[in-house]
Structures are given as C-alpha cells and as structure tokens.
C-alpha cells in the first residue's frame, strides 16, 4: 500500500479509537483526568523502556496502562483526603510528567524516545516502522497497535455498554442496583491510557487530548443519544484526521498539530451552527418564535 494511504489509515484509526473513548469522558466530566493521563503516560513508557531495555510496543502498552490507572488512583486518593479535585489532578500529573521528563533526559536520550517525539508524534515515519506478527505480512507497528487497541475498546464497549451507560448518567442508581461503579471507572481509565499510547506514535501525548475530547464534544452538540454520539464522534475523528493530513501537507507543517487544529475548527463550526444546540441556530429559532 502507498505511503500516503498508510498515514491516512493510521490517522483514521487513531481518530476512531480516541473518538469513542472520548464520548464517555465528556459525559462523566473526566476530560481533565484524561488530559492528566495523556501527560503521565510518558512516565509509563520511559519506565517500561528503562526496565525492559527495549522499545517493544507491548511493554510500552502495559507500562502506560499501569501508570494511567495509577494516576487515576492517586487523584482519587488525594481527592478523598480532602483536596479539591482540580487541584489534585494538577498536582499529580505535573509531578509524574516532570519525573518522566527528567528520566528521559537523563537515561534515554540516545534512543528514538525523545521529548519532542513524545509531545508531537511523528506520523510521517509510521509507514517505515514495520514489524511482523505471526502469519500476517509485514505491517506498520502503529497500525497493529491501534487495531489491537480498537478491538479491545470495542469489545469493552459492547460487553459493558449497559454498565458504561448507566454509570455515566446516574452513578448513584448504578451503585444502588449493584453495578461496580469504581471498577468501571478504572476500566475506562485503562482504556484511555492504552488509546493514548497507541496513538502516541502518530499524534503525540498532548495532542491526543484534542482527538479524545473534540470529536466527542462536537458529537454531543449534534445528538442526545449515546449510540449515535459514539458513531458520530468516530466519524468526526476520522474526518479531522484526513482533513488535517491534507492541510498539513498543503501548508507543510506538523501533521499532528494540524489534526488538532482541524478538530477545534470542526467543534467551532458545530458550536455556532449545530441544528438544535448551536448558538446561532438557537438565536435564529428564538427570533422565528418572536415573529409568529
């Protein structure tokens, strides 16, 4: 397959993975916790590298998922010891990220894991980073990782759809009928960490936040139904990835940055023009009401 096609496929897969996970984050008001996790994942990957001395994607996934869940646990601990939630998020993620950056600049500066790469990703190298898995032909590593994570995410969402839905909209009710609310919360945090790592190569640890939150937020402005919101969010994620890629190659700038910017532009368009919840459409329908 051609070079361009691989980049588009990997970008779209990242868009779908992030889009469907992001919907739950928005509904549960966990957007900032996801932001925190996307920063701390760096520490997980650095530790995985230092312990295993290899850049194997599998170890990185495990390390990142562990640190991601640990971030959520630390925030929960500080919050329950009486610190307001936003402050506990701020303290935990800046500390873990700072430790990650220090370890990276002390021990791992000679490998392909460097700080700029971690922040911005390098999707242009994705098609050349090939690996062979089992009976499959040689495929880009990022493609395999994203496909694996997408399958895991879809399985979790399909198997626990009811539980995820009820804990998102009415956690008290969920707890009352015996749904393990906290377990579902940590499963979701694990999903976020794995999605972040898998998208790490293509979009980088910080811009993945844009891909997690923006498509879901735009989809939230378009519909009131969870299943439609999930599908729309995935579609918008793909659209932003593809438009972002062509825009970046036209202007010759960072691909991941341009994907994030396009995500923001799409949100801005829906913020003003969404059929029922857009600012301008609301104003327009008010005026029509006045005239009649």
């Amino acid at each position, binding site marked *: 397959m051609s070079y361009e096609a691989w980049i588009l496929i990997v970008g779209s897969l990242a868009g779908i993975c992030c889009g469907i996970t992001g919907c739950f984050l*928005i509904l549960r008001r966990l*957007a900032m916790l996801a932001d925190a996790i996307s920063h701390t994942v760096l520490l997980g990957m650095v530790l995985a590298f230092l312990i295993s001395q290899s850049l194997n994607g599998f170890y990185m996934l495990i390390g990142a998922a562990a640190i991601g869940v640990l971030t959520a646990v630390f925030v929960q601990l500080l919050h329950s010891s009486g610190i307001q939630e936003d402050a506990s998020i701020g*303290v935990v993620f800046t500390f873990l990220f700072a430790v990650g950056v220090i370890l990276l*600049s002390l021990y791992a500066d000679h490998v392909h894991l460097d700080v700029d790469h971690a922040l911005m990703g390098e999707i242009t190298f994705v098609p050349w980073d090939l690996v062979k898995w089992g009976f499959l032909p040689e495929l880009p590593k990022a493609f395999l990782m994203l496909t694996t994570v997408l399958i895991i995410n879809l399985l979790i969402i399909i198997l626990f759809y009811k539980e995820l839905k009820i804990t998102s909209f009415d956690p008290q009710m969920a707890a009352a009928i015996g749904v393990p609310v906290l377990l579902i919360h940590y499963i979701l945090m694990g999903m976020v960490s794995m999605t972040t790592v898998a998208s790490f190569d293509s979009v980088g640890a910080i811009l993945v936040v844009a891909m997690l939150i923006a498509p879901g937020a735009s989809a939230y402005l378009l519909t009131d139904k969870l299943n439609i919101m999930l599908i729309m969010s995935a579609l918008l994620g793909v659209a932003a990835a593809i438009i972002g890629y062509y825009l970046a190659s036209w202007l010759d700038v*960072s691909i991941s940055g341009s*994907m994030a910017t396009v995500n*923001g532009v799409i949100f801005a368009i829906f913020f003003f023009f969404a059929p029922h919840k857009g600012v301008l459409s609301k104003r327009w329908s008010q005026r029509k009401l006045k005239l009649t």
Partner: protein
Amino acid sequence: MDDVIKISLADANTQWVLLGTILLGISSGVLGSIALLRKQSLIGDAVAHASLPGICVTFLLLGEKSLFPLLIGAAISGLLATFCIQAISSYSIIKEDTAIGLVLSVFFGLGIVLLTKVSQSSVGNKSGLNDFIFGQAAALVGSDVKLMAGAAALLTVITWLLFKELKVLTFDPEFAKGLGLPTKLLNFVFLTLLVSAIVVGIQAVGVILMAAMLITPAISARYWTDSLARMIVLSGVFGAISGVFGTIFSTFGTGLATGPFIVVTATFIFFISLLFAPERGLLTKWVKRLRLNKRLQHELVLRKEGKSYQ
C-alpha cells in the same frame, strides 16, 4: 558538592537566574492561591498551554526573539483562551472541564503548527522558541530578569492593593455583588493578573508544567493555615523555595530543563505538608487519633474498674 554550589552561585548569570525564579515563584504562588480557592487552577493550565500560539505569531510577525513583545503575544492568546472557555461553557451544554481540555489541546495544536512554520522560516535566531515548552531558566539574561522582576513585583503589589476586594469575590461572590463591587470588572482584572503571572513564568518553567507553579505551592500552603493572607504569603515562599532548588539541581547536569526540577521540588514540599502539617497533615492526624484511642481506652478501663468496686 558544596564547592560546586558555591562556584555556580558566584556566577553572575546564575544569580540573575536565581533572582528570576524566586520572583516568579512568589508571583505565581500568590495568584495561584486565589485561583485555587476560586477553583480556577486548571484554567491556569489551559492558559499556559494556550500561550504557545501567541508566542509563535508574535515571533513570525517581528522576526526576532525579544522577550517583551513575545510575552504580550502570549498574554493575548492566553486571555483569548479564557474567553473561549467561558463562552463554550456558558453558551452550550458542554461542561467547563470539557471546555478547558478542548481549548487547551486545540490551542496547543495550533501552537505546534506555528512552531513548525517558525522553524522553516528564514528569520534569524529562532533556537530559543523550543525552550518555552519545558523552560530554560539558564537562557535568561539580565534584561529578561529585570523585566520578570518588574512584572512580578507589579503583580504582587496589585494583588496586595486589591486584596480585600479579591477576598470577598473569592469567598462570597453574591455578597460582593450586594456590596456594589464591580464583580465583572474584578473578575476580568483577576484573570488578567493570573494570565500575566503565567506568561512571566513560562520562560523558566515551560508551558506544560506552569500549572504546577500555580497549584502545588498554593495547595501546600492550604495545609498550614486557614487565613487567606497567611496562605498567600506561605504559597509565595514555597514557590520561591521551589524556584531556587529547582534551578540549582538543574545546573548539575548539562542541558537539563529547569521546569521539571522546580516542579519536583514543589511536589516534595507538598508531600511534607500533606504528611506533617499541624492539624491537617495525615501523619499528625493519625498520631492524634492514636493518642485519643489510648486515652479513651484508659478512661474506659478506669470506669470499668470503678464499676466493679461498687
């Protein structure tokens, strides 16, 4: 080790850098503690990330790296970000945390796009712009520090002058409105102060970790006192200490960014406060409970024995 510290402290440039980080620690500690109580800490995080596009646009327009205009550009895009967050969360069903995350990441993405544009442009000295991401206090020179010192002193004085008004606004906004205070104007003034404090700090700490300078010293100070004035002073002191030690640690290796070390020092102070603060510290609470249990047991035993004698 002592000699290394002595030599590096004797160096004029290091003295400038230390002075700069102390001042920025004070100003961000002071404004951070009010932001913390107003639950606006994470807005500070968003402002810090969002200052990147402003810096890049100013650089592209001017074609040179002089600190003052860059900071003005950063402040404008930071204020724009707070405006976007407020507009999104008040005019649509999107909640504030989603709005913060969205604005933060999209502005940062735009900043990265502009940064790649800057690195392709033919203008001269552009090497310093990357330092804004993680902070490089070692790159500060005398004139930069004078600017930072002036700004930090001005911010602290304005906060001191507006202390009473800000206090009412923080704890009881309704009452402030009832008193006839211009709450909207005060909100705007506070946000401008906060944005300026962040913008002054990004040179040394970097846009990603700047949030820690606002949050961590303030939350540590909260453990030691209940009075706002004392909390602000303590938080400024904690900020200054983190600035000094972070800078010293980062000079031990070559090419280490200052930001992460400042943050780790600030978090260390936070852990000490979390454990040992009088009344609120976890360890002090635990010791107190242990003592209480012992006393209760002792009293119960006395009462039981008393009963058996009757």
